[in-house]
């Protein structure tokens, strides 16, 4: 027990500044220690290693040393230029140094007697002193094994290297190659010799889509988030999406927004909340896009910036539809109050979509965001990644106190739910159902507010029509049951009276059992 209490002491960490990474690792890399980052070829190890140093230089004014065993310094500098990282400039400023141990082409080395890696260690130490480095990245130590014949010796020397880095009091990120996405941590059994802390980068092929994840396998003695977290590599480097680690810290707003339809506002108890996520579920053609259009139009009218992600229709189609309902989207676009972003869901992976959407929302400063439709996104994803996508998007939107209106398409015309709903209904604040109702040989439409978090709402299913002015919500369906089940049945008068009686107090000597409990 005594040892346990020693372990629970504070574990200082160094914030890497890599988006999401510090949240997943509960603060960053363990300070003054080495962390092994293991991944297959192409799993973005080198990018992570460079980004760690670049952020140190840019954010914390901490010098960095990069030790390269694989690529030449020129190659690295060229490759990371794409992320806007100018290593040559950092070098000139005396904040960055490269220790080049990349193999020389055709360089045959003869081994004649005992040796060790003191030379390398001395070079690293010199570089660390030169730029006053607090961070060191080593990429990748697996390459050493092809340069030297005695694997046991290399392991022993790597252990010394790790100990040497510790002595220099730098925070080190050491990368290593692994063969399979799930299996040994790294080739040559390196991990036991190098680091107490192991992070694994994966690049998995899942249903024909590449999915990158990061997992903190062990952080000896220090807290961290468990499990795999998706990440993407964009033009700004690595960004981890710490979805399941996200905290529910969003503020709650009491401000109400109009949906653009007065009756619907009334049904919601006065409109949507400013920072809420509303899900509209309905079959094809029942007016989901119209609801989106009305919602955005209302925002623009009030001078709010609105943004719509259209995954099913082109910009031209949206504009034409809006005109058809008497909403001039082109005008709002010209005034800079509306932005339409169209994309095929298939063009990017979900993670990249999420990143792009976040940037669009941020760059445009949108106060109302609509996604039409989420079902289109679901088509190209797996259940888990879709849920992560929705959580990532909703929390981002809510953090910014922005209202989000998502639509989802049900498979059947009458009743039923969509898979999308099942996956994400608990994440949303409000759910509005729009359904076809077949009555007396006629197709009618019904709308109801199923859920309205934190507010009273109308429980009735109301009939509505759509014409060139938009949506007109009318009276509740009377004497009809089974609408949501997709099997509307006219309820005859006598039965209604009976139903009324069931929920009233004891009458005519009839006792209602269990009513008080």
């Amino acid at each position: 027990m005594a040892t346990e209490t020693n372990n629970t002491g504070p574990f200082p960490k160094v914030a890497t500044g890599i988006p999401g990474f510090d949240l997943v690792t509960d603060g960053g890399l363990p300070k003054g220690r080495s962390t092994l980052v293991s991944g297959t070829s192409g799993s973005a190890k080198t990018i992570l290693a460079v980004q760690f140093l670049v952020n140190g230089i840019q954010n914390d004014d901490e010098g960095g040393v990069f030790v390269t065993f694989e690529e030449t310094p020129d190659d690295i500098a060229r490759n990371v230029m794409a992320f806007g990282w100018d290593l040559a400039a950092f070098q000139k400023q005396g904040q960055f140094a490269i220790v080049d141990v990349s193999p020389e082409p055709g360089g045959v080395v003869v081994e004649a007697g005992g040796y060790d890696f003191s030379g390398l260690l001395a070079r690293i130490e010199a570089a660390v002193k030169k730029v006053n480095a607090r961070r060191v990245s080593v990429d990748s130590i697996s390459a050493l094994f092809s340069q030297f014949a005695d694997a046991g010796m290399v392991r022993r020397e790597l252990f010394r290297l790790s100990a040497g880095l510790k002595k220099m009091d730098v925070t080190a990120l050491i990368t290593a190659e692994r063969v399979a996405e799930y299996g040994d941590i790294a080739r040559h059994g390196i991990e036991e010799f190098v680091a107490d802390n192991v992070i694994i980068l994966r690049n998995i092929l899942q249903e024909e889509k590449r999915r990158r994840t990061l997992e903190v396998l062990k952080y000896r003695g220090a807290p961290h988030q468990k499990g795999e977290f998706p990440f993407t590599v964009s033009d700004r480097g690595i960004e981890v999406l710490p979805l399941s680690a996200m905290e529910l810290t969003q503020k709650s707003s009491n401000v109400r927004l109009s949906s653009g339809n007065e009756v619907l506002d009334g049904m919601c108890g006065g409109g949507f909340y400013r920072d809420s996520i509303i899900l509209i579920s309905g079959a094809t053609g029942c007016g989901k896009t119209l609801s989106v259009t009305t919602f955005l139009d209302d925002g623009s009218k009030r001078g709010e910036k609105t943004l719509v992600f259209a995954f099913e229709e082109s910009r031209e189609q949206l504009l034409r539809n809006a005109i058809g309902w008497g909403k001039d989207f082109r005008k709002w676009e010209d005034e800079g109050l509306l932005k339409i972003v169209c994309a095929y869901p298939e063009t990017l992976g979900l993670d990249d979509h999420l990143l792009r959407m976040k940037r669009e929302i941020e760059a445009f400063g949108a106060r109302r965001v609509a996604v039409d439709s989420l079902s289109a996104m679901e088509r190209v994803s797996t259940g888990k990644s879709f849920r992560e996508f929705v959580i990532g998007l909703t929390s981002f939107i809510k953090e910014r106190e922005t209202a989000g209106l998502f639509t989802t398409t049900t498979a059947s015309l009458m009743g039923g739910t969509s898979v999308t709903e099942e996956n994400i209904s608990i994440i949303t604040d409000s759910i509005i159902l729009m359904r076809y109702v077949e009555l007396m040989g006629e197709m009618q439409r019904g709308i109801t507010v199923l859920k309205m978090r934190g507010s009273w709402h109308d429980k009735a299913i109301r009939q509505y029509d759509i014409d060139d002015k938009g949506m007109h919500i009318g009276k509740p369906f009377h004497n009809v049951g089974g609408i949501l089940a997709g099997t509307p049945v006219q309820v005859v008068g006598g039965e209604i009276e009976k139903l009324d009686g069931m929920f009233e107090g004891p009458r005519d000597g009839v006792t209602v059992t269990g009513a008080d409990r």
Partner: protein
Amino acid sequence: MQQHQLRLYVVGQTPNSTRAIENLRRICEEQLLGEYDLKVIDVLKEPHLAEQDKIIATPTLVKELPPPLRKVIGDLSDIDKVLLGLDLVGAKRNDNPRPESSPANEETK
């Protein structure tokens, strides 16, 4: 024959360093008959020189001249390997400019 230009990288005064220096001096005297230019570099004192030769392991012997450039790592106790690394295996038999003093070479071999 061109004069041999050699660099020996060591780190401090470790047993490996001392052994490598001793072994190399002996080999050079015997095989190159003093016709060599050897520079011993302590990486701790002159790390920038180690940068140029991309030194990982120490001791490392770099043969700059005659070309091609070769590297031999270790304390140089394996003389055959050192001669191989210095391209001296063939040279000794065929191109030795002063064959009259070769008996000394034969002995050590």
